[in-house]
């Protein structure tokens, strides 16, 4: 009787732990901590209650730094905005990059969208993203 009870208890405990691990999503490889990306994303004050940043991934692909920022429109309205990414070398100097232009986005209510950019200069070791509202 005691043995059965012990076994059942152990089984119940095992099931509980299975349930908790099934909800656990480990961070993706290359995911930055919020403390790392918070200072790299320059969000216009007008967008602070409009956009939420879900995740930031950083990796080096074919020798070039690549970054992906997952965002979400947390409003009930379509939003138009633009983003640009600047690249910096190991000394913190901004690299002259032809692909630092503004990219426009039209985002539907509650829509998740991705900003995906890659440096073209192998000297790039860090980045900064600017996000502004845009009306065209």
């Amino acid at each position: 009787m005691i043995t059965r009870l012990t076994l059942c208890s152990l089984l119940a405990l095992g099931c509980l732990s299975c349930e908790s691990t099934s909800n656990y999503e480990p961070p993706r490889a290359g995911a930055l901590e919020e403390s790392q990306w918070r200072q790299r994303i320059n969000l216009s004050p007008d967008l602070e209650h409009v956009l939420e940043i879900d995740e930031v991934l950083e990796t080096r692909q074919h020798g070039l730094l690549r970054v992906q920022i997952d965002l979400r429109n947390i409003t009930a309205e379509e939003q138009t905005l633009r983003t640009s990414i600047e690249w910096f070398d190991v000394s913190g100097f901004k690299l002259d990059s032809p692909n630092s232009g503004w990219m426009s986005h039209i985002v539907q209510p509650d829509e998740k969208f991705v900003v995906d950019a890659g440096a073209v200069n192998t000297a790039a070791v860090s980045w900064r993203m600017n996000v502004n509202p845009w009306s065209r």
Partner: protein
Amino acid sequence: MKRKLFLLLPLLLSTAACQSEGVKRIDPGGDEAVTSAGVDFNEIIEWTDALTQRMLSSGFLDTGEFGTQPIRMVVSDIENKTDLSHFPSELLLTNIRTSLLQSGKARWVSTYGEDGRDDMTRDTRELADDPMFDKSQVPEQGKASVARLSLRTQILWTHSQGTQDSQNTYIVRMWVTDTVVGEVVWEGQSNPIAKKFEKGSVSW
């Protein structure tokens, strides 16, 4: 007194008009930039950023299949299949060329091709026939590079008409050919740019 003020009024009004905006410098991609029914400057920049990103992230330049980096490339035909008679293809290509060059993965041939040509390589060799020049400084014949990869471009367009509105949609299609075997090794396209306007509101 009132009569004098009345007579001065047109002068005051015209002075105020002269002080209104004439030419003003603006952010080319900002909110004040003109939005046309065609493709605007900032949209071309968006296209080039996206296409460059797709080319570099695909990895076709890193396979080793086309020799050591930087791989020699040439710009092939640029085909404008849109309603825009003066599409600035050089603007489209310059960012892509600059980006690939900066990446160290490609280098552009300038002796032939449809963009970025410079006849100075050929002209320099002709100096060997001119007795004014020191022949020992003239590069030998047979040294100019031949491109392994060729970049071809098409700018495509569709037009839709509703009862009150019309829409233009533009897209850039690019492909890279291995000139040794004549096979496409990369192909991609930009995100579409769509413009909607009232019928009759746009004139070229």
